[in-house]
């Protein structure tokens, strides 16, 4: 057996074993079902604590609806988000139940949280301003939604970062549209006179 054949065979064997174990491999239905089950458990726990779980229950339904079409990666993403939101809401509610001081700390509008909320509002305003002149960029709205989702899981730093980028995009999109308001034939397309 040549060295080349041996190496090829060894590589193939390694990949057949290693790839399924890594994130390189596409998500399997069992992984999606597991993520949904975990999300449901968190959802039930949150509901039992008196938290309004209508939105996250809807997200879990949405994840389940993706299984027949084999969109397992997306189903996992949505289920994980629902789980994180319910767990965060539960932690907030538990903090309030444990005592007055603990509850105050848990429910406090921290400067980070306030800053993130304000920046999201500013980003949405910038997005709408850009949209009003046909200058909205492709990803601005998605970034704002991601920032809002991060707020629901207590990831305020992440929310702030996303909202800051979205706000910047909105401002740039508006400036761009205004600068291009009189766009016309460029000099290289005009007949030479």
């Amino acid at each position, binding site marked *: 057996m040549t060295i080349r054949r041996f190496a090829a065979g060894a590589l193939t064997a390694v990949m057949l074993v290693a790839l399924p174990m890594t994130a390189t491999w596409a998500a399997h239905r069992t992984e999606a079902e597991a993520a949904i089950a975990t999300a449901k458990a968190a959802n039930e726990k949150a509901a039992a604590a008196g938290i309004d779980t209508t939105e996250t229950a809807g997200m879990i339904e949405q994840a389940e609806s993706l299984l027949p079409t084999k969109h397992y990666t997306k189903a996992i993403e949505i289920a994980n988000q629902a789980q994180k939101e319910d767990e965060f809401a539960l932690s907030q509610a538990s903090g309030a139940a444990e005592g007055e001081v603990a509850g105050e700390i848990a429910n406090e509008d921290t400067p980070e949280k306030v800053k993130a909320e304000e920046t999201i509002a500013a980003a949405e305003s910038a997005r709408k301003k850009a949209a009003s002149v046909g200058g909205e960029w492709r990803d601005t709205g998605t970034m704002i939604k991601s920032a809002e989702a991060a707020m629901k899981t207590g990831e305020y730093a992440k929310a702030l970062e996303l909202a800051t980028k979205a706000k910047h995009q909105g401002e740039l999109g508006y400036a761009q549209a205004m*600068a291009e308001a009189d*766009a016309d034939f*460029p000099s290289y397309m005009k007949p030479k006179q």
Partner: protein
Amino acid sequence: MRNIITMLAAAGVACTLATHALAAAPEEDKEAFQTYFKARFPNVPEQEFANGAYAIDPIGRENWEAIEEFPPYETAIDNGHEMWDTPFANGKTYKDCFPDGPAIENRYPHWDKERGMVVTLALAINECREANGEKPLKYRKGPIADLLAYMAYESRGQVIDVVIPEDDPRAMEAYEKGKQIWFARRGQFNFSCASCHAANSGTTLRTEILSPALGHTSHFPVYRSKWGEMGTLDRRFAGCFKQVRAKPYAPQSEEYRDLAYFLTYMSNGLELNGPGARK
């Protein structure tokens, strides 16, 4: 009295001259547009521009000609034909809306003076459906692409002849708006349609040759290998916008209808050759 008559006559002459000057602008634009591409690609016969990148890419053309022997849009034409012949729930058919038959693509887009808007064939189809109690079709793909494919096929050979009526300044505004959209830089990548399809037409973007804009609207709807199915001009507009990281306008929005008005006018004189097959 004599002075008033003189003044009115002078005003009338001035208005007539101004109207002709305004009307001359689209014609001058078209001449500049077509001259630019003919100079950039001097070996391409005029009608060949309707074949897009396959007019300037010999290897791509060889593949395309092989594909055209068994065109991937044939099923769409058959489906569209069936749609044309199938009565609505109220017993009427598309022929009741379009009495001259399916070979009418060269009448679109056109300026609707009564409603003060550009009307495209896709819009007219859905207006026909709604007038007969049917739900409108989605504009980017699906059944509307099939029906448009059938009508495009029946209209092959007709000469593109978009008109900007001189007696309605709103039509000129729509044309100018479409022109502005085509030349405006947009999105995070700050590209205009002209960036790729005029300035860089014939060059390569990753593995693809950028097609010249002359003839762009002649062959829609298209079967695009990338999509694996048919798609309309709305679908392509949206795709291009997303590629430069701009948010697309809504399908058949005023913006996209005005854009189609300008872009199709620029190809006046070319023959329709849809539906098409593209990568």
